């Protein structure tokens, strides 16, 4: 493809997405079984349960991961379920701390009692396996450097048996490692909240029951917000995503029409 049509493709895509963000249409959002499955599992927990949220993503995917993470965190806080946050990607560390801290403070949750942020550990395979043996051995202190044994929530968790659900907020293949190491080895119940581009990679794990649920991208966030009755960033992004998908579909059709006419012209010319 030459530079000129590429520029047009980019310009049309940019204009359509910006337009959809500025002028809301409010298309109806269908709740998929994948998102409902996750929602119902978190809904079944109460204040005696602990959910581990692993921020396995980069800063780059925050616009998509952020709404999913916010919806899940808000749901846990509303149910009174305790949250332990951590990051297995260095960049997810600060992003996770900001997101979890902001949502918890808005809900009036107390750090150390209702939520705790453990920070980052390198070498994700060893970290996931290590937490199956002894969480305080992998994370002796929380993100602020306070001993884990010094907080009520930190004292409650020893290994995955004390964690009701592990949620991996991921823009990559990290949920695979959670399934292979925490799920298969220690029986942890793993849920993957993913960027849309990664969703189909994890459907086999969902089908076989190795993943307890999937929240699929921005659409999953929008569905989760609908289930909670609190439309937010995910719902707002749906019009733009719809518009982008339509543009790509139109481009595929146009590309094929052009290729077909080129072939026809080539056949006619001697």
């Amino acid at each position, binding site marked *: 493809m030459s530079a000129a049509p590429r520029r047009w493709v*980019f310009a049309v895509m940019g204009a359509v997405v910006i337009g959809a963000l500025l002028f809301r249409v409010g298309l109806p959002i269908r709740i998929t079984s994948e998102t409902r499955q996750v929602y119902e599992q978190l809904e079944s927990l109460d204040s005696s349960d602990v959910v581990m949220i692993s921020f396995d993503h980069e800063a780059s995917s925050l616009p998509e991961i952020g709404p999913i993470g916010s919806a899940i965190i808000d749901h846990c806080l509303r149910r009174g379920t305790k949250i332990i946050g951590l990051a297995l990607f260095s*960049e997810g560390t600060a992003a996770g701390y900001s997101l979890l801290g902001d949502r918890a403070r808005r809900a009036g949750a107390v750090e150390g009692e209702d939520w705790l942020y453990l920070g980052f550990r390198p070498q994700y395979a060893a970290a996931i396996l290590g937490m199956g043996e002894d969480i305080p051995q992998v994370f002796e202190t929380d993100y602020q450097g306070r001993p884990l044994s010094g907080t009520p929530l930190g004292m409650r968790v020893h290994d995955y048996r004390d964690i009701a659900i592990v949620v991996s907020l991921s823009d990559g293949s990290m949920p695979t490692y959670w399934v292979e190491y925490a799920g298969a080895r220690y029986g942890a119940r793993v849920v993957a909240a993913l960027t849309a581009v990664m969703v189909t990679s994890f459907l*086999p794990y969902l089908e076989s029951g190795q993943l307890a649920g999937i929240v699929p991208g921005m659409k999953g966030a929008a569905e989760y917000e609908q289930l909670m009755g609190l439309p937010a960033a995910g719902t707002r992004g749906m019009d733009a995503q719809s518009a982008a998908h*339509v543009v790509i*579909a139109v481009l595929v059709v146009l590309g094929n029409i052009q290729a077909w006419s080129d072939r026809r012209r080539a056949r006619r010319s001697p």
Partner: protein
Amino acid sequence: MLRDWLSVGVAMAAGLFMTVQYFLVSESANAAYRTVLLWMQIVFAFALIIGVIGVLRIHLKKLSRPGSGRIYSGTLLAGAVLMSVFGFSGGIERGSAFLWVFDNLQAPMQSTVFSLLAFYVASAAYRGFRARSMESAVLVIAALIVLIGRVPVGEWLSPHIPESADWILNVPALAAKRAILIGIGLGMIATSLKVIAGLERTYLGGR
């Protein structure tokens, strides 16, 4: 030569121990396993330090040479120094300069690169998704159904579109993915066994 044999020996011994340990009920083996997990994290942290030193060395060298790339190397070095100073002096908690830079500079800049995907998907779809044969025509039609069916506009057009998209993803696409995954899994198992047997030595760097 001795170094190679030592590396292969360590890999084989560690490999055998970790495999046997997985199937054993033994407190001492479990304690050794926990220690190895901690070592792995420590070794990786040191590898990161070596990597960072390598990056700094290369860019210091580039900075000292005349050329148009100096500005990039300078920016990288300035960023590395500033973030380290912010982190060590002001901490990393809420309200710190470190977190401010992360939230307001790094995250938006990286999101910008991520957003390029939308444009590249569009141009790649326009350029590459051509129905040149019956098989590729089926692929193009399936792609169009999934594209429209996975967003609200599909539901708005017809409830059959999202249903068809779900079927495509959950039946034919999933079957193909599962087959590829099993094939890849077998490749991984074969490689793993070759490492334990000392036949696979790629990690030594071509020696």
